[in-house]
C-alpha cells in the first residue's frame, strides 16, 4: 500500500500520465472525431475496426481518457496538496541550509550586507532571506491545477446547453417557464456597416419580470439563470398566402421543406433552397455554376407546383405571385433568424474556475521568477542557499554581487 501511495505521488507517475495524455491527444487530432461509424470503416479500411473498438472516434469522452485526468488529479493531490505540512518548515529549512552552506568561493566584499540588500534580501534576525513566497510556489501551482481539474469537471458535468432557432417575432419557452422573445435580428452594425450578428431579446422570467437586452457574438447575456449566446444564424423562406385575390395575406415562414396546400392535393412543394439558378431554354432549372449550362440567371426558390395531378418544377422569384388551386402564393426574399444557445451553469462554478486560473498564473510566476534564497554573512563572505535551481542561481547571484563589488571598489574581489 505504501509503495502504491509512493508511486502515485511520484513525479515519474505524473510525468507518465502527462506523456500518455499528450500522446493520446495527438491521436485525437489525427483521427476525425464524432463521425458516423461507416465513415471510419471507409476512411481506414485496415484500422477502422480498431479505431472504433478503442473508441478513438470519440476519444475525449472515452472512460480511459477521462480516467487519465482522474489519475492526474490523484497524482496532484498526493504529490503536492497532501504534502502541505512540508511547506510550513520550508522557510526554516532554507535558512538552516544557508547556515550549513559553505561561503561562496573566491568572493569577498567589505560590506556583504549592502550587497545582499541590493540583491533584494531582507534581514531575518542574523540571516538574510529573499523571495520567501517562492517557497510555496510548487504547492500553489499544483493546487491550482487540481482545483482547475475539479472546476472543469463541475462545469462540464453540471452545465446544460440547448440550441434554439427562433424566428424574429417568435419566442421560445425554457424549462422553468422563462420565455425569450426575439424582437429583432441583424447581421450588420448600424453605425460601421461591419459584420455583426446581433439579436434583440426580451425575456419574461418565471416571476413575470421582464428583461430586455441584446446578445452578440462574444457578448452573451444573462436572462434570469440562463446565459444566452448568439450562436449561429440561418435563412428561412417566406411566403404570403391568401385564399382570394383581394384577401388578407398570411405570412408563412418556411425553415425547411414543406408542402403548402389548402385541400391537401393541389399546392406548392417548397424544397427549402433559395439561390441563383440557371433557367435553360428547355425549361430546366440548374444550380449556378453548373458545367456548360446556358440560360437566364435568376434568383428564387426552387419549388414544385402540384395541380390536378400534374407536377411542375419551377422557380418562384421574390414578390412573384403563383396561383395554385385557387390559392395565391407570393414568395418573399428569405429572412435571417438567429440560432441562440441557452446555457445554465451553477453559480459557483465560474468563479471557482477563474480563481484556479488566477492561482495557476500566480503559482507559475512564483515558481520561475520568485526563486527563494537565504544567506548568512560571515565576515566579508557570504554563504548562500537557493531553492529551485540552486547551483546556477547561486552562481548568478554571485556574479551579480561580483559586478556590484567591482563597481563599488574599482577592482574584482579576490
Amino acid at each position, binding site marked *: 500500500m505504501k509503495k502504491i501511495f509512493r508511486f502515485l505521488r511520484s*513525479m515519474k507517475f*505524473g*510525468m507518465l500520465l*502527462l*506523456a500518455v*495524455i*499528450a500522446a493520446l*491527444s*495527438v491521436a*485525437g*487530432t489525427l483521427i476525425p*472525431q464524432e463521425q458516423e461509424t461507416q465513415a471510419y470503416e471507409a476512411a481506414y479500411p485496415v484500422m477502422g475496426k480498431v479505431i472504433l473498438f478503442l473508441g478513438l472516434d470519440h476519444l*475525449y469522452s472515452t472512460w480511459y481518457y477521462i480516467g487519465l485526468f482522474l489519475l492526474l488529479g490523484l497524482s496532484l493531490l498526493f504529490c503536492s496538496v497532501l504534502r502541505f505540512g512540508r511547506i510550513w518548515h520550508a522557510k526554516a529549512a532554507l535558512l538552516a541550509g544557508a547556515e550549513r552552506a559553505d561561503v561562496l568561493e573566491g568572493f569577498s566584499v567589505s560590506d556583504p550586507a549592502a550587497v545582499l540588500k541590493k540583491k533584494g534580501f531582507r534581514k531575518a534576525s542574523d540571516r538574510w532571506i529573499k523571495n520567501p513566497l517562492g517557497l510555496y510556489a510548487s504547492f500553489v501551482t499544483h493546487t491550482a491545477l487540481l482545483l482547475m481539474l475539479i472546476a*472543469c469537471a463541475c*462545469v462540464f458535468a453540471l452545465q446544460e*446547453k440547448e440550441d434554439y432557432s427562433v424566428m424574429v417575432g417568435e419566442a421560445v419557452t425554457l424549462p422553468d417557464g422563462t420565455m425569450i422573445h426575439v424582437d429583432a435580428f441583424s447581421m450588420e452594425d448600424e453605425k460601421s456597416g*461591419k*459584420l*455583426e*450578428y446581433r439579436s434583440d431579446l426580451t425575456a419574461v422570467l418565471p416571476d413575470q419580470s421582464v428583461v430586455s437586452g441584446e446578445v*452578440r*457574438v*462574444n*457578448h*452573451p447575456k444573462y436572462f434570469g439563470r440562463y*446565459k444566452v*449566446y448568439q*450562436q449561429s444564424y440561418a435563412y428561412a423562406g417566406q411566403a404570403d398566402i391568401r385564399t382570394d385575390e383581394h384577401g388578407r395575406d398570411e405570412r408563412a415562414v418556411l425553415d425547411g421543406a414543406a408542402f403548402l396546400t389548402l385541400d391537401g392535393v393541389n399546392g406548392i412543394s417548397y424544397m427549402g433552397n433559395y439561390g441563383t439558378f440557371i433557367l435553360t431554354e428547355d425549361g430546366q432549372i440548374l444550380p449556378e455554376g453548373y458545367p456548360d449550362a446556358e440560360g437566364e440567371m435568376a434568383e428564387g426558390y426552387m419549388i414544385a407546383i402540384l395541380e390536378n395531378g400534374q407536377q411542375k418544377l419551377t422557380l418562384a422569384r421574390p414578390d412573384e405571385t403563383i396561383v395554385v388551386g385557387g390559392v395565391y402564393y407570393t414568395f418573399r426574399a428569405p429572412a435571417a433568424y438567429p440560432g441562440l*444557445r441557452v*446555457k445554465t451553469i451553477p453559480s459557483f462554478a465560474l468563479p471557482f*474556475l*477563474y480563481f484556479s*486560473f488566477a492561482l*495557476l*498564473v500566480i503559482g*507559475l*510566476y512564483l*515558481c*520561475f*521568477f520568485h526563486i527563494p534564497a537565504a544567506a548568512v554573512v560571515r565576515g566579508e563572505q557570504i554563504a548562500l542557499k537557493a531553492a*529551485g*535551481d540552486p547551483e*546556477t542561481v547561486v*552562481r*548568478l547571484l554571485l556574479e551579480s554581487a561580483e559586478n556590484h563589488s567591482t563597481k563599488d571598489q574599482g577592482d574584482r574581489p579576490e
Partner: protein
Amino acid sequence: MLNVLFFVSIACFFVTAFLHVAGGFFKKEGLQKAGWLALIVSTLILSVYLVARGISAGRIPMSNQFEFATFFAWGIAVMTLILHYRMKVEGIAPFAIPGVFVLLSYAALLPKDITELMPALKSAWFVSHISSAILSYSAFAIACFLGIRYLTMLRRGASPEDKAMQDLDYLSYRMIAFGFIFLTLVILTGCIWAEQAWSTFWSWDPKETWALITWIIYAIYLHLRINRKYRGKKMAVYVIVAMICVIFTFVGVNQLMPGLHSYG
C-alpha cells in the same frame, strides 16, 4: 506600399542573417558588428511595417496566419536584441536571424490582404490571447536557438562544465520558463474567450489540443530540469524537438487540421 515595406524588411533580414552567419563562421568581428547594426535597422523597418499595417487595418495586426507569422518573427528579432544588448548573450544571432528570415519568407507566401475582423475575433481577449502566444512562441524559439548553439559548441569541443555552456543551458531554461507562463496565459485567456464566443471553455479543437500538447511537453521539460536536475545535451536536444511541436501547432494545425481556429 505596405507590401513594399514588408519585402524590404525581408531583404534586410536576409542581409542581416548573412552578416551574422558569415561573421560567426569566419569569426570576423567587423561582420558581426555590421550584423547587429543591420538587425537593429531590420527590426525597426519591420516594426514600422507592423505599425503601418495596424493603422491601416484599424486594429492590432494579429488576426491571421500572415500577421501572426510576421509578429512572431518580430518577437524573435526583438528578443535576440534584448539578449544581446541587455543580457550580453553572444552567439545566438547566427541561429536566430536565419530563423526570422525563414519565418518572414513563410509569411510572404500567405495572403497579405487586410481583412475585416470576423465577429468572433472582435473581443477584449483578442490582444491578450494572441500577444501571449507571440511572446510564448518567441521565447520557445529563442530557447531552441540556444539549444542549437549549445550543441554546436559541444561539437566544437566545449565542455558542459564551462561557464559559457552552463549559461547557455540556464538561459534556455529561463526562456522556456518565461514562454511557459505565457503559453499558460494563452490557454487560459483562450478558455475564457471561447466561453464568451462559443459558449464552451474547451471544445477539443485541434489548435486547442495541440496547445495543450505543447504545454505538456514543456511542463515535462521544466519538471525534468528542476526536479530531476537534467542539464546539458539532453535538454538541448529536448528543446529543439519541443520546438517542432510549437511549429506544428502554429503551421501544421492550420494547414492540415480544419477547426474553430482555421482563420488563424
